[in-house]
C-alpha cells in the first residue's frame, strides 16, 4: 500500500487510542490487567503497518496494541487476551505482554526486551530460504536497541542478506529511565552504517511522514532482500505500565510532546487542508467508541481458560 488514505489512518489511530484508553479505564475499575500503552505512538504503528502487504510478517513486543490494531486485529479478541480469557488471540495465556496473531502475520511477540530482535533474523531466514515476496518487520524500542542483540541481529541480517525492516520506535523512555541516561547520541540510525545497512530517521508523530518513509524502506527491503533500519522519533505519553503516575517525567518535556499528539496533529492538518468532512471527526470517534463497547462485551463474555489449559500447548 504505497498511498496512505489519511482518513483511514485517522480512523485507525483513533481506534488504537480508544482501545488503550478503554483498557486504562477498565484497569481503573479492576476489570482488566495493567498494560503498556502506546498512547502518543499511534502514528508510528499505523504509518509503518499501512505500508505492508499481507505477505509481510511483523514481530512486536510488550507495547504491541498499535501494531496489532493497525494490522487489523479484532479489538474484542485483543481485549479478551488482556483479560486472560479463552477468546483472546492466545487463549488468554499471553495476557497483554506477548500477543501474537499468526493469522494476521503478527508472529513471535516477545516481551523480553531484545527478544524480538533475536527472532526476527530467523523469520527473515525463512522468508529468504522458502521464497516469496514477503519481508519481515521488527518493531522494537530504544531500550531494546541498548541490548547487544540489536547489533547481533543487524550484523547477521547484513551478512546473510535477510529481508528485515528494523523499526526502532524511539519513544524516549525505557521503562523508568530516560533514553538520555542510557546513550550518548540522540538516536540509533548511526549504528546501521558500519553494517552497511541503510537507515532513516523520521518524525514518528506524523503518520504521513512515517508512512512515506516506511514505503521507501519496505520497497528497499523487498527489492534488495537486505535489511533496513527505520527509526521513528516519538514519545510515550502515558506511563510505562498502568498504573504509573509519571512522577519521574519532566513536565516540560511531557507538555512539549502532548502538544505534538499524533492524532490531534493529523486531525488539525486534515482540517486545515479541508479534507476532513465537518462531522467526520465525530463519526470516527463514535465508531471507535462503539467498537470498544462491542470489544468489552465480547471480552467479558469470554470465559477464562479451562484449568486443563495450565499444561496444554507446552509441547507440540
Amino acid at each position, binding site marked *: 500500500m504505497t498511498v496512505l488514505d489519511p482518513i483511514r489512518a485517522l480512523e485507525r489511530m483513533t481506534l488504537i487510542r480508544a482501545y488503550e484508553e478503554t483498557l486504562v479505564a477498565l484497569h481503573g475499575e479492576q476489570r482488566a490487567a495493567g498494560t503498556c500503552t502506546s498512547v502518543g505512538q499511534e502514528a508510528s504503528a499505523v504509518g509503518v503497518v499501512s505500508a505492508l502487504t499481507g505477505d509481510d510478517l511483523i514481530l512486536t513486543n510488550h507495547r504491541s496494541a498499535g501494531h496489532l490494531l493497525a494490522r487489523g486485529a479484532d479489538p474484542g479478541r485483543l481485549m479478551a487476551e488482556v483479560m486472560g480469557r479463552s477468546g483472546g488471540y492466545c487463549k488468554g495465556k499471553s495476557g497483554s505482554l506477548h500477543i501474537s496473531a499468526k493469522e494476521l502475520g503478527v508472529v513471535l511477540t516477545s516481551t523480553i526486551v531484545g527478544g524480538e530482535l533475536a527472532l526476527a533474523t530467523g523469520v527473515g531466514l525463512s522468508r529468504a530460504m522458502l521464497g516469496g515476496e514477503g519481508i519481515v518487520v521488527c518493531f522494537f524500542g530504544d531500550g531494546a536497541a541498548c541490548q547487544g542483540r540489536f547489533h547481533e541481529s543487524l550484523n547477521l541480517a547484513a551478512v546473510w542478506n535477510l529481508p528485515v525492516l528494523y523499526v526502532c520506535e524511539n519513544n524516549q523512555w525505557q521503562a*523508568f529511565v530516560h533514553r538520555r541516561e542510557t546513550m550518548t547520541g540522540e538516536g540509533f540510525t548511526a549504528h546501521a552504517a558500519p553494517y552497511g545497512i541503510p537507515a532513516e530517521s523520521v518524525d514518528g508523530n506524523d503518520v504521513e511522514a512515517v508512512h512515506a518513509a516506511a514505503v521507501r524502506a519496505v520497497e528497499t527491503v523487498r527489492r534488495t532482500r537486505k535489511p533496513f533500519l527505520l527509526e521513528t522519533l516519538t514519545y510515550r505519553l502515558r506511563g510505562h505500565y498502568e498504573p504509573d503516575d509519571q512522577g519521574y517525567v519532566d513536565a516540560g518535556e511531557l507538555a512539549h510532546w502532548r502538544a505534538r499528539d499524533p492524532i490531534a496533529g493529523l486531525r488539525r492538518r486534515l482540517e486545515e487542508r479541508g479534507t476532513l468532512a465537518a462531522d467526520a471527526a465525530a463519526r470516527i470517534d463514535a465508531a471507535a467508541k462503539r467498537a470498544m463497547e462491542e470489544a468489552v462485551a465480547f471480552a467479558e463474555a469470554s470465559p477464562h481458560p479451562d484449568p486443563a489449559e495450565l499444561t496444554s500447548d507446552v509441547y507440540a
Partner: protein
Amino acid sequence: MTDMTMPQMTMNDAISAALAEEMRRDATVLMFGEGVATKRPDLVAEFGGARVRNTPLAEGIIAGTAAGAAATGLRPVIDLLFAPFLCYAMDEIVNSAGKLRYLSGGQFAFPMVVLAGTGGGWGVGAQHNHNVEAWFVHSPGLKVVMPSTPADAKGLLKAAIRDDNPVMFFTDLALGYAPGPVEEGDAVLPLGRAAVRREGADVTLVAYAKSVGTCLEAATRLAERGVQAEVVDLRSLKPLDEETILRSARKTGRVVVVHEASRLCGIGAEVAAIVAEKAFGQLRAPVLRLTGPDAPAASSFPLEAAFAPQPDAVVEAVLRSVGSPAARPVELPAELPVPA
C-alpha cells in the same frame, strides 16, 4: 522479640531498609540497574548518583559490570528486575562470577548481590514469571536466597551484601507488599539456615517463599484434622540447611516438599534426594513433591493462581501420606492421629 512490639514493614520496604543500612555502613556498596535510581530517590539523595545508578537496558553488561567491579574493590548490588531477564546475564553470573575465583586459583572474590523478582501474583506471564532459582543452586560458586518474610528479607540481604561470594537474591513478587514484623537495627541473618516456622510431629512440610504461607495455611487445616505438621522454611537455597531438614524429617518420618517452581530438577528434587539418602531409615512414607507443572506460567489469572501448589493440595497430599497404607508397613506410633 515478640511480633507485637516490632515495627511492621513490607518485604519491599525491608529490602530498601537493608540497602540503605548497608550502604551507610560500607562506602564500597553501590547499586545499579534499569530504573534503580528512578525508583529509589531516597538512596540517590543520601548516597549520591555515583552509588545509585540507572543503567542502559542490558542485563548482560549490568551483571558483567557488577562482577568486574566486585573483583576489584566494590560491593555491587544489581537489580535485574524479573528472573527471566537473568537469561541475558547467565554468562556473567555463571561463567564469570561463579567460576573465575576457582579458575584463577582463588585470586579473586566476587562480593555481589543480584536481585530478581519472580513468581505469580502479577499476571504477567512466563517471560516475567519463571522460578529459575534451581539453576543457580546447580551452578558452582553462587549462593541463593529466597525469603518468605520481610524480616528475613532484610536480614538475609544484609548478610548477602556482606558475603564475599555472588548471592542470587530472589524475591517472590506475591510477597512484596505484605507487611510483617521487622526488628529494628542491624539484624543480620546468616545465609544457610532454615527456619522452623511451626513445629509438629507428624509430617514435615519443606517450602520457601510464598509456599511457606501455603504450608502454614495447610498446617492450620491439618491441625483441625488432628495432624501436626512441621513447616520448614528453607530461606537459603544454597547453602541449604541439610541439618534442619534432616532433623525434622527424622522426627516426623514424612516429608512433603512444596514450591512454585517446576518440579523436574527443582529444589524439591534436591530436598527429596537428601532425605531419601540421609533420613531413609526414619522415613515412614514416600517423599512427596508438590510443585508447579512443567509448563510456562500463563498470564490469565485463574491459570496463574493454579500454577503454584495450593493449601488444599498440601492438605490432600499430607493426608495421603499419613493415611496411606504404606507399601512397606511401618509401626505407627500410638499417638498418630488417623485423618477424619
